């Protein structure tokens, strides 16, 4: 079966997000989830009772039966959780919803994620994240793992650190046009970036994402239904997920140079990996991408993800390409993280980036890319499972 049966079969017709400073959510994850689902349904112009599918990822206590029960939906037909933390499966969750619609398993699926420190602690990790072979050696957080992988990308792979800096500065520049961004009114320049305190070398403070409390929801329906609801659905052109076997899970013994990649590269048998499968299913390539939202838990993995997708050249050339000018809307060659991203807008485990990807298709971003017809969302680089999804305007079908 060709992956192309998915192309354009489903579309995002409703989005909603809310975020608060970490620890300051006024409500529980369940209540925030319900609120954003209602808002996303209102955005789509559909009744919440019509929702028959729910997909989330990477944890969370409120599954489809719980949320559907609270909303008293007509019937639950699809309730899934995508495995994979670190935001790796965030785009995969959207693909999962579209799969249900394309195969007739469900008609109206919500993708959602809520995070509240009061409910689940920081990122939902009760204690340290890694096992004894990491902890015994001073490694207990994803930041440190990503830092070591990034260090090899810089030192061995030859990517200049300025590539990371440009990504961070572009994000902060975008946040200055987004009044709800947490970095709004707090512009960042090279000097402040370089002088910020070290966290886990090579990461400085501003290379690391902020965590927020909040919730996000996206409503997907079939392409036929989408056309009746609004003039600007964001069609899912392609989605891909996975990782080379063994990636990230064998105490940093990934094969060959996979260690310094973001995990979107070729399979261990040389067959196409996540990025190539995405392009192949979409019938488009990196040159066709108008705007990108790339998950940046930390700046280094985001650069690696762009390289994996062929959006940025590897090695020294990454430094030439990754300039603030090239990465900012409206005129950059590859405008990215146009709401401010995880770094300067908010971080609801990265699903907020998907909402911005949809806004770019609608032309409603606070940093719109003129005439954007394709909008890429890349999830969770350097996580054990990674994913990406390409949205397109109706004209791309």
């Amino acid at each position, binding site marked *: 079966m060709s992956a192309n049966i998915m192309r354009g079969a489903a579309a995002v017709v409703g989005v909603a997000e809310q975020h608060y400073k970490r620890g300051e959510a006024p409500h529980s994850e369940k209540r925030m989830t319900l609120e954003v689902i209602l808002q996303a349904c209102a955005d789509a112009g559909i009744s919440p009772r019509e929702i028959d599918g729910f997909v989330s990822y990477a944890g969370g206590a409120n599954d489809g039966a719980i949320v559907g029960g609270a909303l008293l939906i007509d019937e639950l037909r699809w309730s899934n959780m995508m495995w994979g933390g670190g935001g790796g499966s965030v785009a995969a969750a959207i693909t999962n919803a579209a799969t249900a619609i394309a195969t007739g398993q469900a008609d109206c699926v919500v993708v959602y994620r809520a995070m509240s420190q009061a409910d689940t602690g920081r990122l939902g990790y009760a204690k340290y994240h890694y096992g004894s072979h990491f902890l015994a050696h001073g490694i207990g957080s994803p930041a440190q793992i990503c830092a*070591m992988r990034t260090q090899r990308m810089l030192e061995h792979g030859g990517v200049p650190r300025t590539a990371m800096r440009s990504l961070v500065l572009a994000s902060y520049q975008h946040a200055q046009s987004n009044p709800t961004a947490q970095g709004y009114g707090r512009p960042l320049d090279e000097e402040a970036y370089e002088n910020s305190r*070290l966290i*886990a070398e090579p990461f400085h403070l501003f290379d690391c994402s902020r965590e927020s409390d909040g919730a996000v929801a996206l409503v997907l329906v079939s392409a036929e239904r989408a056309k009746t609801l609004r003039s600007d659905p964001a069609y899912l052109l392609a989605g891909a997920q996975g990782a080379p076997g063994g990636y990230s899970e064998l105490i940093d013994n990934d094969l060959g140079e996979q260690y310094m990649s973001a995990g979107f590269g070729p399979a261990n048998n040389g067959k196409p990996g996540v990025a190539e499968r995405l392009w192949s299913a979409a019938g488009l390539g990196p040159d066709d991408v108008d705007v990108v939202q790339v998950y940046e838990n930390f700046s280094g993995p985001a650069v690696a993800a762009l390289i994996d997708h062929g959006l940025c050249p590897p090695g020294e050339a990454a430094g030439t390409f990754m300039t603030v000018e090239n990465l900012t809307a409206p005129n950059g060659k590859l405008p990215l993280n146009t709401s401010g991203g995880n770094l300067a807008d908010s971080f609801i485990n990265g699903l907020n980036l998907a909402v911005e990807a949809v806004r770019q298709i609608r032309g409603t971003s606070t940093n719109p890319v003129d005439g954007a017809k394709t909008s890429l969302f890349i999830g969770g680089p350097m996580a054990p499972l990674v994913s990406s999804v390409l949205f397109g305007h109706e004209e791309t079908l």
Partner: protein
Amino acid sequence: MTATEPVVEPWGPTPDGLDGPYWDGLRVDELRLQRCNECSTWIWGPQAICGHCHSFDLGWETVEPSGTVYSWNRSWYPYMDEYADRLPYVTVLVELPQADGRRVLGILADDVETNPEIGDRVVGVFEHSEGAPWPLLRWRRAATAEGEKG
């Protein structure tokens, strides 16, 4: 011997028991890694199966504790309570050519000020701290270990 800081708990065998021989080896100053008895593939971290030939007949072999820096990180942020007054420190990912390039993590026990470089030679030191439940394998730059200024 005093512990090289930081000492981060918990450490020792994982609940699945797969890595018991690794920790037992440290008690007698040996670095032991898993190796397939069928096809001789080196395996790390510990697994129930050989990913290469899918044999469950896995053994352990002692490896000379020396290698090269594959990557490194200097931690400044107190991600754990145990770190709070022991920052910064450097963790290295060490590639072991004698075990087909398998990589093991470890704290760099000397000189946290000088940046390691990928490819630097390092040697393992077995650290038996007073009162500690298990020894730990730390790393030193080869030049330092040989008494030169590295």
